[in-house]
Each structure stands twice: as C-alpha cells, then as structure tokens.
C-alpha cells in the first residue's frame, strides 16, 4: 500500500512522463506509459544498465551500480537498478 502511494505520488509529480518497472529478464511488469514506448525504453535501458554495471564492476568488482541518471536535452531518465528489477522514471524537469 505504501508502495502504491509512493508510486502515485511520483507519477503525479511535476514533469514525470512515465514510470516503468522491469524484472530481471527485461520484461516490464508495471508501466504507466503506452506499450510501444515501454517496450522501447525497456529494451534500450536494459542494455545500458547492464553495460554500466559491467563497467563499474570491471574497475572494482566489489563495487556495484546503485543509480544511473541520463540527462538529455528534453528530459531525464533515472534508473534504480537491482538484482531483481529495474525501476525507470522519465522526467522532464523544466516542464
């Protein structure tokens, strides 16, 4: 219940375009955007996170990736990776 409340608050936050929760296989299990966009984001970001995690751990195997933010001209993609899931939030902060 608290999880849903928090998700609702995040979703209604200013500028948030969508939230996607992806499981470890790369399948989105919860999303607030349309199918096509979700699938696209999932596929691309999954690879990016794996690469980023691999990079971090290659340098020091005891380290691990905790958060990833990609800021572009139009919006910002924030990813909280974990062993079992990814949490992706896309926000346009200047909106």
């Amino acid at each position, binding site marked *: 219940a*608290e*999880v849903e409340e*928090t*998700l609702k*608050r*995040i979703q209604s*936050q*200013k*500028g*948030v375009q969508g939230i996607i*929760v992806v*499981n*470890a*296989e790369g399948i989105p*299990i*919860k999303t607030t955007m349309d199918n096509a966009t979700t699938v696209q984001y999932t596929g691309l970001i999954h690879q990016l996170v794996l690469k980023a995690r*691999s990079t971090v*751990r*290659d*340098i020091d*195997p*005891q380290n691990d990736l905790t*958060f990833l*933010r990609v800021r572009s001209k139009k919006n*910002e993609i*924030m990813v*909280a990776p*974990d*062993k*079992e*899931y990814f*949490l992706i*939030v896309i*926000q346009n*902060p*200047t909106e």
Partner: protein
Amino acid sequence: QIFDDSGKDVTPQPLFHLDPNTIHPKQSKLFSSQDATVAHGSEMLSSISIQQTGATASFVGPFTRSTFGSSSISKSSQSTLESMTEETEESIVRRDVSISLSDYQVRREVREPLTEESLNKIVAIYLTETETMELLDMPAVMVSVETEEAQSIREKNEAYMMLCKNRAGNDQYVERMMQTFDEAPKNKEVQCEKINIADADIAVMATTWDMYDTFNSEETIALSTKAAVGGPVSQSQSKSSSQMSLSRGQETGMSKNSFGKDSYSSTIIDVDNAIVAQIPEEEQKSAEEILKSEKFQQDLFVMERILMQNVFQPRQASYRQLPVLTVYIRPVQPKMFCTNYYHNKYPDYKPEVSENEEFKAVSVKTKTPSLDRLWSFTCELTKGHNVSSMAWNKKNLDILAVGYGQFDFKEQKGGLACCWSLKNPVWPERIFHFESGVTALDFSEASPSLLAVGLYDGTVAICNVQSNQDTPVLDSSDCNNKHIGPVWELKWIEQDRGTTGDDKGEVLISISADGRVTKWHIRKGLDSSDLMKLKRTGNEKIRKLPGDKEKKSEAFISRQAPGMCFDFHPKDTNIYLAGTEEGQIHKCSCSYNEQFLDTYKAHKGPVYKIAWSPFAHDVFLSCSADWSIFLWRQDLSKPVLSFYSTTKAVHSIRWSPKSATLFGTVNEGRVEIWDLSVSILDPIVVSSAGPGAKLTTLLFAQTTDCVLIGDSDGQVSVYELENI
C-alpha cells in the same frame, strides 16, 4: 508469385538459400509436392551454384525464363552432378539433383506446346553479323625464328639474361618491400538464420567482476562442502546463479547442486556463508513480489527524492547556497516580487516585461533586504492543521519536525507530528498521529533520533524517528505527575546534574498551562519531577489608590499561573526564564524550586515566547499577546527596548543564529525581520501572509540564511533572506 507484363516470373528471391546438403528433408518435401514452378527451379539452381566454388558463377542471381533453354543448363546440371559426387553425399542428394533434372526436362516440355502453335506463323528472321567480340586475348610468347622481329627479340633476350646475371650483388639493384593495395570492398548482403545461444551463460566475456564473482562463490562453497566437490560444483553453476547467491547473503538455503546431496544442508545453515546454488529460474521473482519487496520501496523512496531534487533544484540550491543550474529556470514572467531573484542571479536574462517594470524590479532588488519564498512543506495530510511548533534535528540538519495542533480550546482536533526532510518537500518522512493537538516539539541532542512531543492534553510523548511505526515509544499518560494542561514548550537541555548524583546528561524539561515546570527522566518509563511551580503573584495594579476603599486581594481559582514558554540560559544551564500567562517572566534556578530569583514584569498579556540571545548572554527577548516585543537585560527589571509594530498578538520570536542583531517575529498576519543595527523602530523586512492563513511559528535555519514560517493552514514555507 509475381509476374511482370510479359509473363516472366520476377518473384523476389531471398538472397540466402537453405543449404541443400544439410536441410535436404525440407527441400525434398518441396519437390515431392510436384509444385515444380520456375521459382523452385531457379532456387535450386542458384543454391547449387552458390555451393560450388566459382564454377558457375555466372548463374548466380535471379533468373528469367529466357536464360533457360540453352545447353548451359545441361552443362550446369551435369557439372553439379559431378561436384556432388565429389563430395561425400548420401544418395538422397543425388535424388534431389535428379529430381531437378527431371524438373528441367519438365520445363522444356512445357515449352513445346508453344512452338507448335507458332509453327504456322510466318516469322521473319533477320540475320546480321555483330561485330567481333574478343572474349579472350592471350598474346603469344613464342615467335618463329623466320620473322622479322626474331633478331630484335633475340637481342632482347640476351640483354635480359645479362641483366639477370648482373643483378645479384649489384649496387644498382635494391631490395624493396612492396605493399599490396586493398581493393575496394564490395558489399554483398547475406541473410542468415537466428543464431541460438543454447545456454546464455556460456557465451560470456571473461570480465573482471565475473571472475571475482565465481571466485567468491567457489570460496564459499569450498568452505562448507568438501574440497573435492568444490571444483565441479562451481563449474556446474552458471554465472548468474553465483551472482544471485552473493546477493542473498543472509538467507539460508538448500544447496541444490546437481549432486543433490541433502546431507550438506545441515552444514550449510550458517548465516554468514552465502551458499545458495539455486538454478537461475528459481531466482526470478514474480512481479508482485518485486513490487512489494523492501528493496523496491527503498528504491522508490530514493527515486522520489531525486525527482524532488530535479523539481526543486533552483530553490533548494539557493537554500544551500549552491549555484543554481540554468536548465531548470523556466522562462516565466516574473510577476510577483518574490520571483525576481532570477534577475539578481542572471542579469542578462530579459523577460518580456516592460522596461520600467524590469528596471524597477532590479533596482529595488539590489538595494533592500527581502524575503524570497523558496518552497513550502505541505501535503494533503497536513492541510487545515495549524502549525504549532517546529524543530530542527540536532544531528541531521536536513530533517525538520513539525507539530500540528490547534491553539484554541474550541477547535481541537487530532494532532500530527511530521518529520520532513529537505530533500522531499512533498511528503513527510515520518508521520505520527496523536489524539490531541501537538503543541510543542523538540529533538534530543544526545540521542538524535528521539523526538519529544508535547500535546494539548498535557501528555508528553517520546517518539523514535528511526523506526517507521506510528506510535510513540514512551508516553506520559500513565504517569502520576503528568501535566494537566497543554504542554506549551518542551526542551531537551544538557545539564550538569552532579549534585543529584546523576552524570551529566540530557534532561527533558516541559512547561505547561498547569503552572509547573517539570523535568522528565526515563527510568522504566517516563517519570517526572517538578522543577518549579509557577505561583501566581498578586496583581500589583490593584494598589490602594488614595481615596479608594481597600480591596480584598482576589481569590484565585488556582494558585498557579499557567506557563507559556521557557528558555534556558545558553551558558549557565541552571538558570532559566519562564514566561507565564499573566505576562510575567520569572527567572528561576534549577537548584531552588520554591522561589524565583527574579521577576520581570512588563507585559500585559501572556508571554508567548522568550529567547536568550545566543551572542550576548545577558540579553533576552520576549514577545506577547499584547502586541509588544521587549528586549531585556538580565540585571535590569525594566525592558531596555520595546518594539511595537502591529496590533496583533506576536506569536513567536527567534534570534538569528548567525547575526547578533537580527531576530525574526511572527504575528498573525505577517512575518517581520528586525535588525537592531539598522533600526530599532521598524523591522527591516516585512512579508505578509497569504489570505486566509495566519502565521504562527518561526524558525531560523542553522546554517543558511533561510527562515521557516508555519501557518494555520498546515504549510511550512521556506523563505530566503536576501541582502541582509
């Protein structure tokens, strides 16, 4: 099947054709269906030709019917037969080829009906000679001795032989390396089937962390199982499962390796060793599990904060006195006075306002001190509640505790105490519900996660903000000496209690409307002992006026004066001041609980707040409902300075922690910042409250130039002080 105008088959062919050698069952199906159309035939032909290494290169590509019907077909088919026999093929392939031969024959037969029909036609045939096309020109290297050139050729030959003899060891000849040029590459498109990685874990790069993970998991297994088993077990594990095992460090589990030795389970139940060699599929949590897991909640929490950071970045940055990122400044029209701090920071930014306005705004901005509203802490939960008290956490200066409770007796509803974090102004981190309104709050310094809450019904509760639970840890409702009236002020004080036998420690002191200043200690529950009882002193105005009859002294309903506020001396923690509802301020000491050391009388209404100056230790301020603020010195019984600026009760007053002459007050309609070095008659900054909300509390930020104002609508607004 696509046919163009003249009936030719121009079906687009796939570029890649299945290898007939390996996938012959498929193709035999094709042919056995007797569906021998041109397309299949050309497919077969081109596929066979692709197989050959350049023997029939000219036949690659799409065919049209016109290219058949020549002896080249028979040639190619014969040569395919030959090449087939060369390779180690089963007879099935020969059958295929023979099928294809028969197929061609079929095609040729198909032709004949046409020619018979057109036999009757008179066809004109034109024979022309084309120009000679040289297909191959190989000049001769032999010349007859009798030709004219023979002599010259002989000479040339001899010269060449001489050359060859002289070449060895001659300085005129130098050995050189040569580089061959790379010819321009020609692109050829190829299609292939999807490459199935049978086991995704096998085809991986040997990355540093991969090796680290497998090494670690090997180690943990070797610890609990026998060494001989350790090697193969680790190999049988896949990479992902070893990763999983490390992540589930604290879980005990059965080691389900391929050996299936259950006897190991007893040795494995050892919390420190992460030995969960489970098959990867079992590690995949279902969607609901993920969504409910703790980790997910935590991640959401962090994500919310980061979102807030994005949204609130300019204001929070100015709060923390960090540079503001321009990305977040939206091109808004600065309408209100508050928002023109953009002008200040980005003077070359020109919004679409008239020249005069802009100039005025800028010029006003740079001269006078002002309050800029940054943001406010508010959520639906707190709407409608009156903010009664605020306190910063002593250890983590980003955490703010706000108490919500009504001041009036009539409007009592439930109270709340919320812990807000600066990083998330939209939702409080902790919410504690109480039955009666919260009237006072303070964070402890010795144990920074303890929050003491004073309620309207006199209860003192202690909450632990580290835990997520809603209820307080300790409550004084069962206590014998609990307060009977609302607790108006609570403070944790570091006291030197050497005389009473306790070590120097922190005490919780409260003052309430039942006239008692009590000290609370936590020994097997909350218990209190009174520091002082505030006695009512007689109203000295009732003096005998000449000519008046003697009046009896008033009979009091209660001998005790309700206490409204107190403050301990910053240096000497034995001395404190207590303000009462009668308007008197008593200086008391912890060592004497019968007598006041001194009394300061000047206020005509209840004293709402007293504050010692943090810089000048003899000076204190008091504010009261009689619209006045007095500045006192400890040794003088009359106030040194008095400040009157409005006709509303002054609810709160605080010294600025940074500047010795600055203090802020809140009365019902507005917030005022006074600077004694500038003027003692007027405040330097006045900011009015929005309509419908009364401002009730004030708090200065410890490290930055910001001030927090609470109002009766449940909002706590953060303002930045500029130009002070």
